[in-house]
């Protein structure tokens, strides 16, 4: 008896390879991210995990001399064939360093909506509120929507960036060490957030912090020296990895 094929993966890479000039940043990587999972990428600095992440919404295109081979598929469709603007609206991104625009709180969240051509004030207000609630920031900023985003604390600024990414209703959210510059309390807030966002979004997160990967993610991929070493359920990667290098890394023998 044949089993009905499961849904195609939300995001899939096939022999994805990235180089900057003559420097190979990423050896061919093939892996699949399922819908509604939190997928974490771990590995020491310079291992290629951020390069991999940026390849997923073609942010590497911005870097001069970067070259990409192989394929990235979103719902089975090669992203190279998609309009890059559409792709980035479907696959949003949150950066390591919070980078709000020097605009008001409201205008930060509304930015992607305005770019997308939404002008009606009521629609904007409604969507801004919804995104700020999703990012667990509404209660803290609802009376300060007209204030500069730069007046918020670092933790709030990062959640504002998450709200800004959510406002355009992406299907996938890429996060590049979103909590690495934050204190433990702000980090805990972001991690709680990831749990609640899972129901609606697919999340790929790069993290330096292994406890964080263990706490938040369903599956984990370990990168080392520009290559994918191992991918599997998070629990297995942390308790019973197949590869020796993975074990050495997660047990802290090197880092």
């Amino acid at each position, binding site marked *: 008896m044949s089993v009905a094929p499961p849904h195609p993966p939300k995001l899939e890479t096939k022999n994805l390879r990235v180089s900057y000039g003559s420097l190979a940043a990423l050896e061919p990587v093939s892996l699949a991210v399922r819908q509604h999972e939190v997928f974490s990428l771990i590995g020491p600095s310079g291992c290629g995990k951020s390069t991999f992440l940026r390849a997923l919404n073609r942010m590497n295109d911005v870097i001069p001399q970067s070259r990409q081979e192989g394929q990235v598929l979103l719902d089975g469709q090669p992203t190279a064939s998609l309009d890059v603007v559409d792709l*980035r609206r479907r696959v949003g991104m949150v950066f390591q360093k919070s980078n709000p*625009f020097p605009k008001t709180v409201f205008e930060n969240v509304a930015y992607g909506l305005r770019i997308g051509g939404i002008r009606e004030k009521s629609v904007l207000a409604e969507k801004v509120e919804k995104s700020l609630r999703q990012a667990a920031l509404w209660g803290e900023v609802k009376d300060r929507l007209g204030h500069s985003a730069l007046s918020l604390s670092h933790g709030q600024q990062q959640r504002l960036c998450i709200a800004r990414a959510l406002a355009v209703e992406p299907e996938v959210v890429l996060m590049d060490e979103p909590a690495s510059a934050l204190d433990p309390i702000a980090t805990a807030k972001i991690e709680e957030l990831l749990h609640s966002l899972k129901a609606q979004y697919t999340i790929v997160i790069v993290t330096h912090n292994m406890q964080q990967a263990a706490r938040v993610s369903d599956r984990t991929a370990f990168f080392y020296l520009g290559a994918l070493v191992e991918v599997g359920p998070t629990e297995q990667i942390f308790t019973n990895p197949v590869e020796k290098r993975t074990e050495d890394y997660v047990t802290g023998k090197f880092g």
Partner: protein
Amino acid sequence: MKAHRVNQISAGLTGLAALLIVAGLVVVVIDAVLGGWGALSWRFFTEEPGDDVSEGGVFPAIYGTVVLTLLMTVAVMPLGVATAIYLHEYAPPHSRLARWARAAINNLAGVPSIVFGLFGLGFFVQLLGKAVDHVRGGGLHYAQPGLLWAALTLALLTLPIVIVTTEEALRAVPVETRMASLALGATRAQTLGRVVLPGALPGIMTGAILALSRGAGEVAPVLLTGAAYSLPTLPNALSSQFMHLGYHAYVLSTQAPDVEAARPMMYATVLVLLMLTFALNLVAIVVRSRARRGST
């Protein structure tokens, strides 16, 4: 102890240099005020010069300088800002056009201002002006020195300032901010219009201020391209000649029938030119601080 001593000396020397700059400005201003204060009067500001230039007022020169400087700003800002945007935002790395443009800008900045005057006379007045008159028909209008040509000549002179400061301002907009915009699905043009240019606006205004101050004080370029020795009527067209405070100061100091009698007038004219430059600067600084407040 020794390091402390070196530190003190270095602070002292650099402080002295800064003090010299301030002192230089103060001496110039005091000299102009002492020499010219007595000649300042309501009439001086509001009337045209008499038959003898050492009598009457300088209103046409004030008016001419203001109109000239504003026209110059209108001409130089779009061209300078557009060039800087191309160089910093669009030119591919190692672009040949960008390299030539930068070399041209650097050389332009080193050309003596009298050469700009000669160029303006040859290119704008005699070549373009003749062509314009030919196309328009109806006699001599643009093939002679006038407001438009003088403003364009000054615009060329101040172009490097605007380009360099604008590029600096664009460079100061953080890469992270651009990335955030692109990652939200904005195109490069949208990112430029909605994030980069608003962020760079205060810096661009600084460029405008520097260009304004430089342009208002230049005499050599306008001497050959539009400024008149004495003109009782105000310029009423782009092809009109005009009086200019800087040129008027030169006329009063060397060309007046009685140079000694004209001296207070000369000082007063210089004083007015200084005040005008400060006033134009002040307006631009207020506009800039507004822009700065708006963007943060």
